Structures are given as structure tokens and as C-alpha cells.
């Protein structure tokens, strides 16, 4: 398909940014956790779920969204947040638990809220789906053509919230798109041991007014293409969509995961199909940008990330007593 050059380059830049962001996070997270790993130690404590390898899902659909569209993301949220344009400084500061963070240090990596670009995420599997449907309902009631996207993992598609929300969204023809990132794993449980269907786009058959799309092989361009269809359907008021994308989890479920359940050669073979490399090759081979221009994009992305980490590290921690604030307004 033909994809506008600026979209292609934006996707590349955003994927690079997301990847580089998480590479920095791998290191920051490891600080204070050596030689003995302790989840609570270091400048970035708590659970850490990274999305390296899953960037195509995020950029392929966010390329079609504006600030007024809503994204609800799960426990593995950074690639979505970055693609949706969440304030990178404040997001990073939040992950470092700083006062300048999106949630003043109260939320952390699983709880990033940026109402400016209508982004949210949360740590409960599948819980974002109905909330995204609520944003879609609000758009419908306000008469705007905004849409809402809920990202979930393939494991989450077996949760009750998936079914309840799709039925309701189909019934009310809500502008909702559920993107299922099939990275083959729900922690240690392979998809084949959790999911009684080959791919979740087929579950659209259970709901009228609902279309299912399958994106194979972690392909960002195909993701862009089907997302365009799904977003346009939603904006036209034709109802929800389910997009399943086959994607790759390069790292453990969380940082520190011993991954004893995974074959040793799985990740190396996935890395050979790194979507960032593949989109870069496409850009260069199609002449969408020169080596030089590509490098500039990369540098721009990395500089932004470096600045965000610097901002986060230099920010102050909240005062302990601030823990008592913000329960009620």
C-alpha cells in the first residue's frame, strides 16, 4: 500500500524513540539492583514491563489519531504513550517517582495519565477496554468524531471485560478499536495454552457491527493500513473493530523475569525480524529518506529521550506528606 512519506518517517522515528527509551530504562532500572536483584531498590523500583519489539502496534494506529482521540493502555504502556504523544519529560519523571511526574510520583510506570493527549494506562488486565468504550461513548454523546483505542495483550482477550465491552460497543456502534498485541505470551503461559481461538480478530464474529483484522508478522505498514480502515469505520459511526497483531516480546514479562519457560532460541530468532530494521530498510530502499536523513531522525528521537531522562533525574522527589494529598479534590 502507499503510505504517506511523513507518516512512514514519523512511524520510524517513533519506533526508534520508543526502543531507545526502553533501552535507557533497562539501564536505569538495573541501577541499584546489582549484584543482588531487589525489585524495590534503585531509582526505578517496582515492576517494569517493557515493550521492545512491540512498537508496530503502537505506531501503526497512533499514526491515525489526534490529540482528541483516546488511548487506554495496559501494564506495558510505554510504546503506546510515546506514540500517542505523552509528555516524555513528565512520563519519565513519573517512572522515577518524581514530583514533576504525570502523577506527582503517585502512579509510576503502570499508571501514567496524560489528559492533555487523552492517554491512560493501568495494571489490571483488560480493565482499560471498558474505559476506552466510555471515552468512545462520550465522543458519541458530544457529537464529535473522536475515537478510542484500547490496547491489550492476547492474554487479556480471555478476560470477561473484553466480551462485555465489545458486545456493548457493537450494540451502541461506539467508535472503539481494540488492538490485541499478540506477543505469544501471558507471562509464562503461551497463547496456545490460554486462548481457544487462533487469533482474536475472529472473535469479531460474536458481535454484529464489528470488524476483525489480523496483522501478521509484526508488520508496521500493514498495521498502519488496517488501522486506517478501523479508525475510519469508527469515525463514520459504523462500530467497533478488533485488530490482532502478531508481535514480539524481546524481553521478559517484567525485568527480572528468569524466563525459564521460554526456549533459548526464541528471542534470537525474533530479533532477526526486528521491525525497526525492516521499516528502516523499506525507507531506504524506497528512497523515502536518505541514510543521512534517517540518522537525523534517530538523533532527534534519542536526544528527546536523553533530555527526558535528564529531566527526570534532576527533578525533586515529592515531600513524603504529599502521600496524603489527591485522594479527593
Amino acid at each position, binding site marked *: 500500500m502507499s503510505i504517506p512519506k511523513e507518516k512512514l518517517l514519523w512511524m520510524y522515528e517513533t519506533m526508534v524513540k520508543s526502543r531507545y527509551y526502553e533501552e535507557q530504562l533497562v539501564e536505569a532500572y538495573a541501577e541499584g539492583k546489582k549484584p543482588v536483584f531487589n525489585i524495590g531498590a534503585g531509582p526505578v523500583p517496582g515492576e517494569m514491563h517493557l515493550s521492545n519489539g512491540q512498537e508496530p502496534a503502537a505506531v501503526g494506529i497512533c499514526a491515525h489519531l489526534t490529540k482528541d482521540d*483516546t488511548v*487506554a493502555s495496559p501494564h506495558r504502556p510505554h510504546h503506546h504513550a510515546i506514540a500517542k504523544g505523552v509528555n516524555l519529560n513528565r512520563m519519565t519523571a513519573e517512572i522515577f517517582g518524581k514530583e514533576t*511526574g*504525570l*502523577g*506527582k*510520583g*503517585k*502512579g509510576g510506570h503502570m*499508571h501514567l*495519565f*496524560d*489528559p492533555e493527549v*487523552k492517554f*491512560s494506562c*493501568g495494571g*489490571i488486565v483488560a*480493565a482499560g*477496554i*471498558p*474505559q*476506552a*468504550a*466510555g*471515552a*468512545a*461513548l*462520550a*465522543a458519541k*454523546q458530544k457529537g464529535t468524531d473522536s475515537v*478510542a483505542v484500547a490496547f491489550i495483550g492476547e492474554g487479556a482477550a480471555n478476560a*470477561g*471485560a473484553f466480551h*462485555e*465491552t465489545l*458486545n*456493548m460497543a457493537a*450494540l451502541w456502534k461506539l467508535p472503539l478499536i481494540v488492538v490485541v498485541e499478540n506477543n505469544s505470551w501471558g507471562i509464562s503461559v503461551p497463547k496456545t495454552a490460554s486462548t481457544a481461538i487462533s487469533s482474536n480478530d475472529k472473535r469479531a464474529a460474536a458481535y454484529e457491527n464489528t470488524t476483525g483484522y489480523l496483522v501478521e508478522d509484526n508488520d508496521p505498514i500493514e498495521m498502519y493500513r488496517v488501522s486506517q480502515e478501523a479508525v475510519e469505520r469508527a469515525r463514520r459511526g459504523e462500530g467497533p473493530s478488533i485488530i490482532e497483531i502478531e508481535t514480539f516480546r524481546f524481553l521478559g514479562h517484567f525485568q527480572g523475569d528468569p524466563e525459564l519457560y521460554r526456549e533459548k532460541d526464541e528471542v534470537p530468532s525474533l530479533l532477526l525480524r526486528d521491525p525497526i530494521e525492516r521499516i528502516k530498510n523499506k525507507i531506504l530502499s524506497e528512497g523515502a529518506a536518505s541514510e543521512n536523513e534517517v540518522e537525523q531522525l534517530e538523533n532527534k528521537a534519542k536526544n528527546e529521550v536523553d533530555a527526558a531522562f535528564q529531566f527526570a533525574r534532576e527533578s525533586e522527589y515529592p515531600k513524603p506528606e504529599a502521600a496524603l*494529598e*489527591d*485522594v*479527593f*479534590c
Partner: protein
Amino acid sequence: MQTTKRMLTGNKAMAEAIAQEMERDPNVFVLGEDVGKYGGIFGATQGLLEKFGDKRVLDTPISETAFIGAAIGAAAEGMRPIVELMFVDFFGVCMDQIYNHMAKIPYMSGGNVKLPMVLMTGVGGGYSDAAQHSQTLYATFAHLPGMKVVAPSTPYDLKGMMASAIRDDNPVVFMFHKTLQGLGWMDQVDESVGEVPEEAYTVPLGKANVVREGTDVTIVGIQMMTHQAVAAAKILENQGISAEVIDIRSLVPLDKETILNSVRKTHRLVVVDEDYKSYGFTSEIAAIAAEEALYELEAPVKRLAIPDVPIPYSRDLEKYVLPNAQKIADAVVKLMKE
């Protein structure tokens, strides 16, 4: 000269508040099971569909997680949803949305996301609806931080506190007592009808109400148990015991001062609840007294509540586990002898 009072049932008082707020603010809308044509199983949305149409009064599938979650998502976008959970007993199919999201998002976002929404739900037993349809679960909700939890006991408060709840920028769990709705198919109790002004007004959330003054003992009640406490106070009056009765009205925020002031006056405390006893409302009020008014107490605190059993079906069994006026009066009499 006697002026005619405007008397309404509990459900009509609630529905009136909702209608007035819907008129005031186009962002207010209602969703839930059977809230449309049926007008709510407990009548809280009576007449709203006719008045506001099906874009603002939405019947939902039996999908509590989906539609309560949707209310949260809509509230985050600046809407002001009122979402009904038909019986509070059903909370278990949707509690994640309620307590992990509705109640925590404002905090986790550092106050950047507001969720101006009302979750209303019917509570209470006494009509043989058995273990899965008779609970109040006051403490189950009140224990978890991040949501206001109110439980009004009169038509006047139902209207005024509903208006406050809708205007509040925080998530509010609004519990109404089924028997106090004044429905044609329920037991007709006098307390389900009361004077209600026609114009919109608010009653603040978080203030207890001294519904009867007294000097010998403080009885703290909630919803139906407030009325039982008042009836008990009348029994006690005949025996020369002067009971002060407090209607708590709001579990969160909790008006400790009103309770403590009363205890400082009467030096005796009885707490009555229609919820389970242990780890409940009576525990919290008793604990506050033990923590903040110990030296004021001239007798042990007495707690009356459901004795940690599921609510049984058969009438005499249910009566046995529910506190009532006579049981309260008996407890007070015993306490006065301490």
C-alpha cells in the same frame, strides 16, 4: 393555619434530584440496567427516559464491568455519569472498575484526572430476598479509599445528597435503601415518605445528622437502622432513658466530630448497623470512641449488626439476624445498668 407539605417517596426524591441536575448540566447522563422504560427496579430513574430521551438515559446489557467502566471513561472526558448497580450485592462482578480505577485514578494521576461520577446502588434486606440480594455492604465500600460513600435515610436527604453527589467532582457511591424508596411492591414504611421541597437544593456530603437529642446514651445508626434507633429511643423514653440518635448519612467522609461530641455528652455509645458485624461500620465507630473518647466512656461500647452470617431467607431467620428497635432498646437498657 396549616400549609400543605409536599410529600415524596424516596425514589421520587432521588429521581427529582437527577432530573433537576440533568436540566442544569447537559453532561449529566444515566446508565444502568432497566433505568429506561422500567424507571429503575427501585424507581430511582422514574420518568427520566420520557423527559430526557434515550441518549441521556441508557439501558445497558447485563455487563456491569463494561458499563461501569464506560462511566469511568466518560467521566474522565468531562461527562458526569450516574451509573446504577442494581443491587449492591452484585458488586463482585465489577468491583475492579469501582475500586481499582474509579477510586484510584484521581490519586494515581496526582489529581490530574477527575472522575465526577455517581455510582448509585440499592441496599438492604428485611423482605426475604436471601443471601445474594439483601446486603448493605457499607463497610466493603467504605474501607477502600478514594470514593465518597453515602447512605441517606430520608427523602429529603436522598434528594439533597444526590444533588451534591452529582455536583461533586469526586466519585461518589450513593447507596439507597430499597425499603426506604417507598415502592408500591415493598413493605410500606412511614419513613419512606417525607417532605421534599420542589426546588433544587443540596445537602452536604460528609455531615452526620443528630436526628434526636438525648442525654443518657448515643445511638449511631445508618439508613434503616437510624429509623430503628429512633423507634428504640421512643421505647426508651417511656422507660425514662433519654437517647440521642445520630444518622451517620455519610460513611466517607465520616463526621467523627458529631459522634465524639455526642459521646462526650452522653458517655455511652451504641452503634447499629445492617451490615455484617466484624470489620464493619460498628467496628469503626467503636474504634474511634476507643481511640479518641476513651475517658469519656462510662460503659462498654455496644454494637448491634448482622452476626457474621450470610442473610438467611426464611422470615424468622432473617428477623433474628437483623437489628431492630426492640433489640436496640434492650441493649441500651442493659448498658444503662453497667
